């Protein structure tokens, strides 16, 4: 036994302590509990993995999943769902990412949230998130995965709505939860189908059975399962059409955006699809759908990222776009490349967000790129680390993004060349908007001086300093660590490590030129950004004016939110109110019920009129009655 349960339970303990007693605890204690629990968890991961021989580099390490069973969770008939944790190579990667990045971001948050109200609450939620995320990763069956899945959604909801006094924050929280629920709807249906067809939800059992199944006979329902799983993944990982919640989720504190909405939770969908790779490989056409949706998401999100003015929104769309990339990789069959990108993306995107947080911190809460500028000299460390992250995401070799993105694009090229080309364009756009944000923030005139710099509208940074300032050590140390990881992380050979898991698509990309093209696209993107925002800052406005219609569409995110509101939300609400409630419930059903009552009373009214009070009419009734009775009794029973 390696006591895997300790890994998620440590953060849970942190949550329990801070959640229950946090209000009465001093800040250092809260910090110690929150950060310490996650760090301990990280250490326990390291200890466990080393005990399992992961760092020894043995060839056959963890080829078979290592599993622990704790207790039966649900037992009904032949269906037995246990609380089981398992580690295999995929889990090991995810564990490292989650606990590693998680620890860094916890440390960062200590500095970032230092002046916030609800400090203990924040860390409690964050720890709870860690618990659920680790459960998600460790769970050895679909239902336990689902527990983590829903749990991280809950924490996401709580943390997005952390500033619950603000309506936009709680709205965003609700949106995130509900859109995720739509995805979960698909996931749960898939779970039902899996249990129905395999009689179990254990990964081992299910995938073992899948392996033995001939593709032809099972393609129909297997595709259904795969697609439903993907609906779930699309919800969690913000893919078209369910991506709408993620940009709004930036309403949460920045460390949350970094941890949940960039590095870990949103990649759960990728993890889940990769985990279910056996099913997808048996599902005819499902992979294609994954690839196409991923690509479309990557492309459209990138276009939307081009015109955002809020620094976190830029990175948010970038996240959506990058997630699309990962699904493109998965859909192309390069599962390991997808997971690889999960890791590198975790490094640089977490860094981007934390950097953005540092910028925002420096700007005392200002998020609008239009009001930044020239921050280079005020926040040098942030500047440097963000630069690392930006080059990493732009796919410039030899930094981490280059390695993983390249692997995905190569796989896409093999899968369908046109996908590769779209991917390349997207890569160019990615480089462009990332550097656009970078240049706007750190170069040019300090526009905040003009704007007066006395913004307190968000009310969360109550400390108005005169000048932008560098962040404290607890913030910049994680930045630095992540910067290093962003730069060199690409050399952790995840595809090789995962090879035994995804045997079918192990071979490395072949064609050389695809690499150059994609790198070139990144360079062009950076160059264009430099041209637009450093050299001649008038160009963007001119372009916006020239292409006003496309610009307006992009700027307004293609009006997708409005479209959903008009097509789904409003009809549902209005229809429920005016049709179902007022008409069907109050009108028809209750009307019928009350109508029965009214009818009965009306009948009573008629009957009581019989009682006119006049004796003679009473006598007439008696006579009438007797005629009826006599007739009835002489007629009935035959005439004898």
């Amino acid at each position, binding site marked *: 036994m390696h006591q895997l349960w300790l890994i998620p339970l440590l953060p849970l303990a942190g949550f329990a302590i801070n959640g229950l007693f946090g209000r009465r605890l001093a800040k250092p204690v809260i910090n110690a509990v929150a950060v310490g629990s996650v760090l301990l968890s990280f250490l326990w991961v390291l200890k466990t993995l080393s005990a399992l021989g992961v760092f020894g580099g043995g060839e056959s390490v963890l080829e078979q999943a290592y599993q622990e069973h704790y207790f039966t969770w649900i037992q009904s008939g032949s269906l037995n769902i246990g609380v089981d944790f398992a580690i295999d190579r995929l889990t090991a990667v995810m564990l490292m990412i989650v606990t590693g990045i998680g620890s860094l971001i916890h440390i960062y948050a200590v500095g970032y949230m230092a002046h916030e109200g609800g400090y203990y609450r924040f860390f409690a939620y964050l720890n709870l998130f860690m618990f659920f995320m680790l459960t998600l990763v460790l769970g050895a069956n679909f239902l336990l995965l689902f527990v983590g899945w829903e749990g991280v959604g809950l924490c996401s909801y709580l943390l997005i709505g952390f500033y619950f006094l603000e309506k936009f924050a709680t709205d965003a929280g609700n949106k995130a939860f509900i859109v995720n629920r739509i995805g979960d709807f698909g996931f749960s249906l898939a779970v039902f189908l899996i249990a129905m067809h395999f009689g179990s939800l254990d990964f081992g059992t299910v995938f073992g059975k899948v392996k033995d199944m001939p593709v032809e006979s099972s393609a129909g329902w297997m595709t259904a399962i795969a697609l439903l799983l993907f609906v779930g993944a699309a919800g969690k990982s913000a893919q078209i059409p369910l991506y709408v919640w993620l940009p709004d989720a930036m309403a949460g504190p920045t460390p949350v955006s970094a941890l949940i909405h960039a590095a870990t939770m949103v990649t759960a969908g990728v993890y889940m699809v990769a985990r279910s790779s056996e099913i997808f490989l048996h599902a005819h056409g499902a992979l294609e759908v994954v690839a196409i949706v991923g690509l479309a998401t990557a492309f459209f999100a990138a276009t939307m990222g081009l015109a955002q003015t809020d620094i976190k929104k830029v990175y948010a769309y970038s996240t959506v776009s990058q997630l699309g990339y990962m699904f493109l990789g998965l859909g192309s069959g390069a599962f390991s490349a997808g997971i690889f990108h999960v890791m590198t993306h975790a490094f640089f995107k977490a860094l981007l967000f934390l950097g953005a947080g540092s910028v925002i911190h420096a700007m005392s809460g200002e998020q609008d790129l239009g009001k930044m500028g020239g921050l280079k000299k005020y926040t040098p460390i942030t500047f440097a680390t963000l630069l690392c992250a930006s080059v990493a995401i732009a796919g410039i070799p030899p930094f981490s993004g280059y390695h993983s993105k390249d692997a995905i694009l190569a796989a896409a090229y093999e899968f369908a060349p046109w996908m590769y080309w779209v991917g390349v364009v997207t890569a160019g756009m990615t480089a462009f908007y990332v550097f656009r944000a970078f240049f706007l923030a750190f170069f040019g005139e300090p526009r905040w001086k003009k704007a007066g710099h006395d913004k307190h509208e968000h009310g969360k940074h109550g400390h108005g300093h005169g000048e932008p300032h560098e962040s404290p050590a607890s913030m910049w140390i994680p930045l630095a660590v992540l910067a290093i990881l962003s730069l060199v992380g690409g050399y952790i050979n995840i595809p090789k490590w995962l090879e035994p898991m995804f045997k079918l698509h192990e071979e490395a990309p072949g064609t050389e030129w695809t690499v150059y093209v994609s790198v070139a696209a990144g360079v062009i993107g950076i160059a264009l950004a430099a041209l637009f925002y450093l050299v001649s800052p008038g160009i963007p406005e001119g372009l916006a004016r020239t292409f006003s219609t496309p610009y307006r569409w992009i700027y307004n995110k293609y009006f997708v939110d409005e479209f959903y509101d008009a097509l789904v939300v409003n009809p549902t609400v209005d229809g429920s109110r005016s049709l179902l409630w007022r008409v069907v419930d109050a009108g028809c059903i209750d009307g019928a019920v009350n109508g029965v009552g009214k009818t009965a009373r009306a009948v009573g009214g008629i009957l009581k009129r019989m009682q006119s009070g006049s*004796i003679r009419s009473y006598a007439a009734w008696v006579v009438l009655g007797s005629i009826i009775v006599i007739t009835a009794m002489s007629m009935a029973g035959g005439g004898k």
Partner: protein
Amino acid sequence: MPPLPASVPLSWYLMLSAILFALGVAGFLFRRNIITVFMSIELMLNAVNLSFVTFSYKLKQVDGHIFSFFVMVVAAAEAAVGLAIILTVFKNRQTLEIDEVSSLKN
């Protein structure tokens, strides 16, 4: 006019009884004086008595007579009570109009 038979069938008596009964009912339905209405009931009882006596003849039994005797006694008792009730009604309302006694209704 057809020649009269020497004797009448039993059913003629019964028809007479029926006619009288019906006329009693008619009196109850059409008369408005409470006492007349009451008398109509007496007429109905008389009609019933005729039936009893007729059947008694048919069956050659005396029981029918006895029954009609009891009917008479009861009629007498009813008459006493009924008229007393009519008296109280008259005392309170100063009328014997049956339709006026209709305050309790619906």
